[in-house]
């Protein structure tokens, strides 16, 4: 970086700025005055390049960032039965939302049906239960799937859920190429942190590459993978580990997909990321900035991407659920506000703000509304969205960005080493030898010891503890959802053609046995016969086996 030179107007005086300015001036901007509350006009950006929208994108992935469009305020919802969640979805759409984000319940996330013994006490608790195509139909009833973008947070059984979504759309005359949305499908972080895996890593990656191949060919508006550091951080990692493990997982998927014969520029532009925004403000901002720079450089230099879109690290951010305290829960509103501001200053493309009561249960409606209002305050009242990368050029922020990058590169070097020159093999090796879970558990324990020793203050937990009135208003999901869902599943099983189900499941197993076959078409056919989620999962499990984590401390 050269020393910034600015004219009196605050506009840098250099050819890079002029080139960026040309792109900026051509873009459509939000219809509002860009000036401070006191009426002082502000420039779109201050300081040096590389400017936003230009490689390596440290200052932002687009030339205009929030001056054209604010981040998407995408709030995650899902509970009870498909009908309950459908009502919530329609409410979101009526209130002007265009994006739906679906949370599934624990049995669904694990590929189990609501009548499984494993599902006892879990149905509809952490999200919506989906057993068959009938539930998926209820979930999206009376919603025009060609007009919304749907995000589905599911990993192990992602292919089956995507197949159900495709099948429901088809019933309504919507073809796969019209569908827009994202399915998380990031299996690596399941072994590393969230632990919602089904099969061992290699067959799981085969399913994901099949989904990438299928969506690349048939669903140009679909994002087949959301590479997620969020859960890694929640499980206890440091910011740098979150950054490094997530991007390494991204490199690993790129290696897997290109090895399966897909050209990097055909799919990399549809990859997106998902990060955590925790409370250490400047560390988080440095992390977000470093993520863009690292991804761009690796995609260009190591993986030979040519298309600009392949190099853009576009990400969703969620505030840190793990930072929320059960003690004095209202003060979580302040934590969320600070974390949301870090996400905005870090240049996120979309944001979910947690509700203050989430340390205890799913959010109540009031708490969820306060959370949304919090990011609306950041967007509309603080001025943070008026200037692109407003902290860029600050010595501490630039140093932190470099430091995050340096720590991440050290981790990539380790993975490259244990993978003998392949990040994909390095990630497999790190899963197998307990590297990821060990590093995360060590970091989590270090943090707890610091809190326990009083070296690190968590307000309301180990200091400033007065004022906890102990009042808790929490959302409870009653047993009715579980009873209803079991009965519904029994009815669907009663009404279906068992021979057709058996034949379609056999076809899934056959495809699983053939590494050249793509699993998506037979899975789509199977769900159309009302084969259940668990039955399809088991049809593959026959070939792929299950993954059991070694219990390491």
């Amino acid at each position, binding site marked *: 970086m050269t020393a910034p030179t600015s004219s009196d107007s605050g506009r840098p005086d250099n050819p890079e700025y002029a080139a960026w300015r040309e792109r900026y001036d051509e873009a459509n901007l939000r219809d509002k005055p860009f000036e401070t509350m006191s009426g002082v006009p502000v420039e779109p950006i201050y300081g040096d390049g590389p400017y936003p929208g230009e490689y390596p994108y440290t200052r932002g992935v687009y030339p205009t960032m929030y001056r054209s469009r604010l981040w998407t305020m995408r709030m995650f919802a899902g509970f009870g039965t498909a009908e309950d969640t459908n009502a919530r979805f329609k409410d979101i759409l009526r209130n002007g939302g265009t994006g739906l984000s679906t949370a599934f319940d624990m049995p669904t*996330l694990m590929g189990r049906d609501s009548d499984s013994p494993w599902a006892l006490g879990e149905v509809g*608790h952490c999200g919506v239960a989906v057993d068959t195509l009938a539930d998926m139909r209820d979930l999206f009833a009376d919603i025009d799937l060609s007009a919304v973008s749907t995000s589905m947070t599911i990993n192990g059984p992602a292919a089956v859920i995507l197949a159900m979504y495709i099948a429901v759309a088809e019933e309504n005359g919507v073809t796969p190429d019209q569908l827009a949305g994202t399915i998380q499908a990031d299996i690596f972080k399941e072994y590393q942190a969230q632990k919602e895996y089904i099969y061992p890593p290699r067959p799981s990656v085969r399913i994901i590459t099949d989904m990438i191949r299928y969506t690349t060919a048939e669903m140009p508006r679909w994002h087949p993978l959301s590479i997620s550091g969020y859960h890694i951080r929640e499980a206890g990692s440091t910011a740098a580990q979150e950054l490094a493990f997530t991007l390494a997982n991204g490199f690993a998927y790129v290696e897997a997909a290109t090895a399966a014969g897909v050209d990097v520029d055909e799919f990399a532009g549809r990859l997106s990321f998902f990060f955590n925004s925790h409370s250490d403000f400047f560390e988080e901002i440095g992390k977000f900035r470093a993520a863009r720079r690292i991804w761009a450089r690796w995609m260009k230099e190591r993986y030979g991407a040519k298309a600009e879109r392949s190099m853009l690290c576009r990400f969703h951010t969620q505030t840190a659920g793990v930072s929320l305290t059960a*003690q004095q829960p209202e003060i979580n509103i302040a934590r969320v506000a600070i974390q949301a501001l870090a996400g905005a200053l870090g240049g996120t493309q979309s944001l979910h703000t947690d509700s203050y009561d989430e340390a*205890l249960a799913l959010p109540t409606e009031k708490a969820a509304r306060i959370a949304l209002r919090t990011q609306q305050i950041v967007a509309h009242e603080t001025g943070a969205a008026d200037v692109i990368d407003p902290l860029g050029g600050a010595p501490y922020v630039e140093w932190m960005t470099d430091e995050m990058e340096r720590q991440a590169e050290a981790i990539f070097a380790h993975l490259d080493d244990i993978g003998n020159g392949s990040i994909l093999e390095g990630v497999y090796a790190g899963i197998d030898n307990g590297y990821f879970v060990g590093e995360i*558990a060590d970091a989590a*324990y270090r943090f*707890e010891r610091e809190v326990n020793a009083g070296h690190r203050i968590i307000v309301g937990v180990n200091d400033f503890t007065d004022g906890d009135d102990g009042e808790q208003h929490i959302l409870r999901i009653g047993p009715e959802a579980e009873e209803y869902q079991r009965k519904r599943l029994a009815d669907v099983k009663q009404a279906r053609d068992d021979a057709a189900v058996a034949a379609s499941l056999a076809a899934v197993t056959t495809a699983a046995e053939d590494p050249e076959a793509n699993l998506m078409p037979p899975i789509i056919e199977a769900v159309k016969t009302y084969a259940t989620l668990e039955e399809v999962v088991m049809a593959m499990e026959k070939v792929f086996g299950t993954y059991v984590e070694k219990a390491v401390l």
Partner: protein
Amino acid sequence: MSQDGQIRIILAKLGLDGHDRGIKVVARILRDAGMEVIYLGLRQTTDSIIAAAEQEDADAIGLSMHNASHMTLAPAMVKAVAEAELDTPVIVGGIIPDEDLQPLRDAGVAVVLGPGASAEEVAQAVRDAVASV
């Protein structure tokens, strides 16, 4: 308890819940407090936990629950312990709302530890539960 008085505790994740940050931290806290910790890992059943408790002659069973399934699964564990004719106390930690504390105790859970319990409180609660048997 072993002859030297060392407490031997089984820690496990019962059911589908995969949140294991808390239980791993608790395992290290209890080890640091001088106990022998046998961590069974994820996706355990009441049967697998009972089998381990019998085989290891455990002094206590500790469960960590973060999925709002504690009102179903914790009493099921207590019942399984009784059916196996063991007197091993069942200790539950995790995301447990205050209003569930008494019902869980009524169901026979020996100790319930909520968010924010310090390392000393966790270790002492285990010692007390074992001593009360």
